[in-house]
Structure formats: C-alpha cells, structure tokens
C-alpha cells in the first residue's frame, strides 16, 4: 500500500532569505566602537565612531571640533598684527610656517607681497622649510611609534630639539614663535645662527637616512603600511586633499611650484609624488620632502642677500611707514615716525577694501586665508582654510574595509593636527 508523503519545496526567494539569516547569525551583530577623543593614536582630540564587524571596519564617522576656539571670530575683533600670535596655535607643530602664511595673506591684500625685500623673503623661506622638517619629523616619529618602532621616535625628537633651539635663538620662543610681521619679520638673524643652522642640516640628513634604513625596507613596517588605505588620484582631488596626502596619490601639485611666492622660483627643488596612494607612499613622500627642504635651506644660506651677519644692512621690512613699525630711535626723535607708530599700534595696518585668498604650502597641506576687508585695521571676515580639516574629511571614504588595527596607521599617515582642524 502506497503512502502519500508531503515534501516541502521552498521557492528560491525563501531559500535565499533563509541562507542570509543563517549567515547573519554566523556574523553576529555589528559593534559600535568609540575611538577618542582622548586616544594616544588620534594625535589630539579627534573622535571617530567606528562600526565594526568583527575586526573589520564597516563605517567610520569622524567627530571634530573639540579644540574649536573661534579663531575666525577672534580675527574679526582685532587688528591684523594682533592676530599673528593666534596663527602660532593653528598648526602648533609648524608655527613658523603659519606665521609666514598669514603675513603673506595680509600683504597680498595690501598689495606689497611682491615688494618684500629679498633678505626677508629668504629668511621666511628658511622658516617655512625648518617648520616643514620639524612637522614631518614629528609626524614620522609618531607614525612609526604607533606601529611599534619606538627608536624612530627617539631619533626624530632629537632632531626636533635642535630645530626648537634654532627657533629659540631666532624668535625668542620655542613654540609660539610669532616671528613675522605684516611687511617683514620681527628681527634679523642673530649672530652665529647660519652656522648653527648649517650644522643642523648636516646632522639632520644623517638622521633622516638612519630613519630610512630603519623603516623603508623593514619587513614589519612595509607589511603594515603598504597597500593600506589607498587613495586614488581622482578621490584625492575630489576630496580636496592637499600637501603630502595629495602628492602621495600621485598628483603633482605643490603651491610652491604652481604659484610660486617668496623666492621659491629662484630655488632648485623637486616635488616628490607617490605611485599608488597608500600609507607607504605618503610616508615616502614626507621622507623625500624633508630632504628637499634641507636642500632649499642650504641654498638659502648660500644665497641670502647680506650674508650671515648682514654687513651690507639689507632691509628686512617693507620700506613703508604705514605698514611696518619704525625703529625705536626714529620714534623718539621724529614726529612723522611717532605718528606712524601711534597709528599702527592703535588702529592697525590700514588695509584697502577688497578680498583675497592666499594659499601657502604648509607641512600639512595648503593653509589658506580668505580675507574680506571693508577697509581699516580689522578684517570684516577671515576664513581659514585648514588642510587638516579637509584631509580628515576623507576618513569615511577610506576607513571601511580596513582592520581595526589599521586605524592608527592610517591616521599616522594622514598626519593632521587638531589645533588647525578645529581652529
């Protein structure tokens, strides 16, 4: 006797649904992990909310603004000269470069940016390049330390100490330099500074080479940073990256070459670019940039008008009593200079109405100042285009698909400063 048996045949849609359910059971739930704002690898107060599937990042949402001080608001409420110390606190790893960038922006508004005395231009270039070496050394040291290579950190910090000593003898301060003035610099090179600087260049290049031997062909280092967080050329441009992060992706753009300011067109240097746009390329670009900076400073020391001790009395400030402060001697003995001094201190440098944008190749990327003036000694609006802020905006794009342990490597390779990002 035959029996009837029911056989359940599910349609394909139901089967797929069941299979997916099984898969999701296997994968488990996603976890949300909060990284920062106080985390040693976020190099400041950056918070990233990560969504993890096991160790794999599926979503990353950066949260910035913990260091917001309202610099743009402050700038509207003081004279142009008064704002110089605030620029020290933007990218506090390269205050000299910020000073130069800001002074050039205001000078562009005044229309004297191409009339700066040559000696002033050379001093400013040296400042900007010293700042670049200093910033890259820290970026490299911290990056390597996060990857477990503590030796590199010690080496780079030894060199940074020498840069701080140079800053100290040049500006009187190690960190908050406030060195530039509108239309010039606050003081000339002190006696013996060029020799000290030349000695530093000889020493730093040895140290950079040593770091290179420690890292570039190091199996552990290469395995951790190579092919990680690849940023394509198109993405780098689309997301507005600048500086070594843009060049690491193979875009040959450097403000110093594209729109030369100061005396950069008289100097010989190369722009290193990466090939693939991974963390390793960004590291290599920074290494080479430090060497190029050494090369630039070396040329400046040779070419600087007036030489080391300025025997020929080359000017370091724009010769315009309405822009730069007169000498103390003149203020005390001449009526006109006394009036200029009084007006500059109380009212500020009188800028014409108009608007300008000036972008400066800072160590972290393009630091830009947009100044809108309605005339007078204070800007009506000043917008700071900070490279770190723009560079960080690519995080939601490159983090997904990476492992949790890769976050510190990617953050290290992006090399940002929160003081500048949050302003």
């Amino acid at each position, binding site marked *: 006797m035959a029996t009837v048996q029911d056989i359940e045949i599910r349609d394909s849609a139901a089967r797929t649904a069941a299979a997916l359910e099984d898969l999701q059971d296997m994968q488990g739930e996603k976890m949300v992990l909060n990284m920062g704002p106080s985390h040693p690898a976020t190099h400041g107060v950056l918070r990233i909310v990560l969504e993890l599937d096991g160790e794999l990042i599926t979503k990353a949402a950066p949260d*910035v*603004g913990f260091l*917001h001080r*309202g610099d*743009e*608001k*402050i700038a*509207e*409420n*003081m*004279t142009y000269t*008064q704002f110089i110390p605030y620029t020290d606190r933007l990218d506090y790893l390269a205050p000299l470069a910020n000073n130069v960038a800001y002074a050039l922006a205001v000078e*562009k*508004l005044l*229309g004297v940016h191409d009339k700066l005395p040559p000696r002033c231009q050379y001093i400013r270039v040296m400042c900007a390049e010293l700042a670049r070496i200093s910033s890259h050394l820290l970026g490299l040291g911290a990056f390597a330390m996060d990857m477990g290579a503590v030796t590199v950190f010690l080496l780079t910090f030894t060199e940074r100490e020498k840069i701080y000593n140079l800053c100290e003898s040049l500006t009187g301060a190690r960190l908050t330099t406030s060195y530039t003035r509108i239309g010039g610099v606050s003081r000339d090179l002190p006696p013996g500074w060029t020799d000290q600087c030349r000695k530093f260049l000889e020493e730093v290049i040895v140290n950079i080479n040593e770091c290179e031997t420690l890292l570039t062909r190091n199996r552990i280092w290469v395995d951790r940073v190579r092919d990680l967080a690849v940023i394509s050329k198109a*993405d780098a*441009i*689309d*997301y*507005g990256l600048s500086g070594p992060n843009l060049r690491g992706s193979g*875009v040959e*753009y450097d403000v110093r070459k*594209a*729109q030369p300011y100061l005396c950069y067109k008289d100097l010989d240097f190369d722009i290193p670019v990466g090939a693939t746009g991974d963390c390793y390329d960004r590291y290599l670009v920074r290494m080479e940039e430090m060497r190029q900076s050494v090369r630039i400073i070396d040329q400046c020391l040779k070419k600087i008008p007036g030489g080391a001790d300025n025997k020929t009395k080359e000017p370091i400030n724009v010769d315009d009593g309405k822009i730069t402060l007169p000498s103390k001697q003149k203020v005390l003995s001449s009526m006109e200079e006394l009036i200029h001094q009084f007006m500059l201190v*109380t*009212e*500020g440098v009188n800028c014409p109405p*108009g*608007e*300008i*944008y000036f*972008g400066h190749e800072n160590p972290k990327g*393009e630091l*830009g100042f*947009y100044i*809108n003036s*309605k*005339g*007078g*000694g*204070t800007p*009506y*609006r000043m*917008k700071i*285009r900070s490279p770190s*802020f*723009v560079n*960080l*905006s690519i995080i939601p*794009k490159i983090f997904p698909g990476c492992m949790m342990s890769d976050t510190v490597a990617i953050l290290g390779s992006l090399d940002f400063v929160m003081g500048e990002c*949050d*302003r």
Partner: protein
Amino acid sequence: MLTLDLANQLKAKFGDLISEPAQFRGEVTVKLADAQQIAEVCAFAKTKLGFNYLVDISSIDNYGEDPRWTLIYHLRNLANNAELRIKTDVSEEKSELPTVLGVWATSNWHEREIYDMMGIRFSGHPDLRRILMWEGYPYFPLRKDFPLAGKPTDVPDVAFTRVTPMEGGPFVTLPSSNDSIAREPRVRVPEDAEPGLSDKQLAKK
C-alpha cells in the same frame, strides 16, 4: 589671461546670471545672480572648464544689508593652475541654497561648517549636522550679531558656555565709553560713523 578667458566662457554659457569678471590682486571673481543655480554653474565649471578642485567655501554675514549672506566658492584647475572665485548672495528669509556635494565630495564638510557657524542650510545635503560646535548648541557663532563674549547656553550632560569677561582683553579696539561688547569692531563698517551698537540696539533694528 587664462582665468579671465574661463570666466568669460562661464558668462557666455549662463549669460546674465554671471556678472562681469572682477579683478583684484590678480584674482578673478564672478558673481552669480541666482544662488539656486550654484550647483549647475559649478558642475559646468568642473566638467567643461576643468575646475576639478574645490579649494574652499567661505561665507560672509553682511549684517544690516540685504541679502544678508554671501557665499564664496574658490575653484581651482589643477592642470593649468587657473583659480576662479564664484560669489553668490542668499537672503536671510531663504537662508538656503543647493549643495554642490554632487560636484565635489570635499564640499561636504565645508557646507556643514557654514551651516554650523552661520546657519545657512544646503538643500540636498545628506548629513547637515553641526561639525565644530556640538549637537544642541542653539546659536550660530560667526554671525555678526553674536557677541565675541559669547552667550550662556546649557545642554545638560553635554556642554555649556558662559559669557567671557572682555575688559582688559586684547580685543576691544574702539575708543568709547560704552561697555566692551558695544565696542567690538565686528559690526563696524568704517564709512559708517556709528560704531559699536550693543546687542539690544541691534535687536531693535
């Protein structure tokens, strides 16, 4: 001049919407008459004129004038280093214009920042949240009617702000016997000989 040519091409395409290119210190600025067209203009500038890099978006509060907001888009062509500035005005009642996120991905955070600081909204932006200030902060601090000293706020368990004492600080640069908030230069227009209106006076206007 290369940038001027490109600016004129933009004008040829959009006609009266784009103003005559203005030059100052070697920079070229054009003004777009209708802010609602900003996305189309930017898309054209990117695809046809090669402005593939958005450097920055800034905003200005023209306090006391109409239209109140000005937005400034700073464009760059990486191939030939041409730079162009596009400005457009937005009225206070509207306070909204289309996002250019579809043109450049970098505008995401710039637009969030402008919303955070000035309170201008970008229609079509998928994630228009505050970025530098915290969620729940009630003011837009870069507006000219927001005093430098700040205003007291309190979001329990998140953050608070207090009014900062301004006397003796480096900010006050206008000679007058008014209080320090009234002496701030932030709302001063030099031609206008009526410096330093206090917040209450401003509110009445």
